[in-house]
């Protein structure tokens, strides 16, 4: 009995201690936060729609950056994830590939954007590369795990026809995992659209720049317009990916 309760109790105590350290039990401060929330939301309505042309252009740039970045990252992640698949390559090659992917993933997308602003200058190109870099690190790991999960019987059966490694990837591993490959790209695209709306903070293009300006000027009615636009684009993305999933994924779910 004691051993069963041990982990939950320790976890709860640790959580309480950490929250206390972070200032969670400063009731006065929390109450002030609730008051401020009321003021902030009052100052956000009605949203200032006169900035729609400016914000719309910035939003379009954000969408372009996320699409291009996600696709570039996806294409680059495929060879890396194949190298990282233990069943296909020797232990040290897959270890090295996994290490590279983990290294890329260690750096958050905002830091990648800063790196590419330094390398290729201010603007959406830096943001596109930043998104692509993070996407490589993330998808390479997910895909390598996915490829390793391919039914070994199918691989053995096709391998025994004398197929090469590349043929195995092309005819067994990718078709068998196609559903999950598509699902992960869509997830990454949604993630990147949200992430790229703040890359402008570091000068890497998109909505972030105007968000930063409105925040600094305490221009909450204009900020509200931008947030609404992001909400709309995320909803549209949800719709598109739901349609893609229905179109391409459900049809193969049988059996």
């Amino acid at each position, binding site marked *: 009995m004691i051993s069963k309760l041990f982990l939950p109790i320790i976890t709860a105590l640790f959580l309480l201690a950490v929250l206390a350290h972070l200032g969670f039990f400063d009731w006065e401060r929390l109450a002030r936060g609730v008051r401020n929330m009321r003021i902030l939301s009052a100052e956000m309505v009605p949203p200032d729609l006169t900035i729609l042309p400016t914000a719309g252009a910035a939003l379009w740039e954000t969408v372009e950056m996320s699409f291009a970045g996600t696709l570039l990252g996806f294409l680059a992640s495929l060879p890396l994830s194949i190298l990282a698949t233990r069943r296909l390559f020797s232990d040290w090659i897959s270890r090295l590939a996994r290490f590279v992917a983990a290294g890329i993933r260690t750096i958050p997308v905002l830091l990648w954007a800063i790196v590419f602003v330094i390398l290729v200058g201010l603007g959406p190109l830096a943001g596109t590369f930043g998104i692509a870099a993070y996407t490589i690190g993330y998808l390479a790991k997910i895909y390598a795990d996915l490829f390793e999960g391919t039914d070994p*019987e199918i691989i053995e059966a096709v391998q025994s026809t004398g197929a090469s490694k590349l043929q195995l990837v*092309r005819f067994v591993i990718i078709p068998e995992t196609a559903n999950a490959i598509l699902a992960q790209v869509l997830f990454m695209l949604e993630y990147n659209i949200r992430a790229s709306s703040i890359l402008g903070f570091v000068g890497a293009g998109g909505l972030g720049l105007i968000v930063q300006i409105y925040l600094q000027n305490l221009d909450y009615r204009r900020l509200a317009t931008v947030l609404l636009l992001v909400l709309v684009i995320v909803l549209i993305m949800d719709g598109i990916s739901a349609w893609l999933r229905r179109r391409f994924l459900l049809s193969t779910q049988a059996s």
Partner: protein
Amino acid sequence: MTDNGTAPIALNAEQVWFAYPQHDAVLRNVSLAIPAGKHTVIMGPSGTGKTTLLRVLAGILKPNRGRIAVFDQPMNGRGQRQLSPLIGYIPQQLGLVRNLTALDNVLMGALGRLGDTASLLGLFPKAEIDAAHAALKMMGIDHKSDAQVFHLSGGERQRVAIARTLLQRPRIVIADEFASDLDLAMAYEILDRIRDAAEQEKITFIMSMHRIGLARRFGDEVLALEGGTIVRGFIGNEILETAPEATVEATTL
């Protein structure tokens, strides 16, 4: 070992031992000789290592001890690549790619003799596509060649798996628990088609089965595997009568 010297030996195993890492031996001193052009059925209770034996014979698993020879050529880990086109292997779950069509799955049998460049683009020579259709026709399933495998029934999938192996043009086909989950009429039909195909293409078949009826119908020779070793070369009187040239050394530990 009895050997009447008529048929050449397609597959020969001598004192083969196999254990998965950190486990007791699954195969204990298995010796057998499969005559070319015959149908050999391996029977035995589940968990006796039938699948393991077939995977060792197919060159997928490397025995810890003992020798395996394919048409008198020794098989080891290195030479496997050149021997593997000679041996077709059909796993218990068939190993078909569900998202691809029946035709695409059959074409995979030709991958071993095609270069990477064209095949990776999905371009197969017309001769191979014709041969794939012919193999599907031989198995009576050519009308479903454009259907994706996940739309096919169990029996249809078995036919596609055989057609893929036929396109490989192997000398030996090793199939694990083939036709085991089909109803008897369907199993008979498929097995008869396999016998016809094997005769045409001069293929030696090795199958594991657990239904005695199917084994009698299909096997020229039945080997029984028990406790990881071949205990006798026949089961029951009828099989004994139809398998006069039993070429198996009974090894008991």
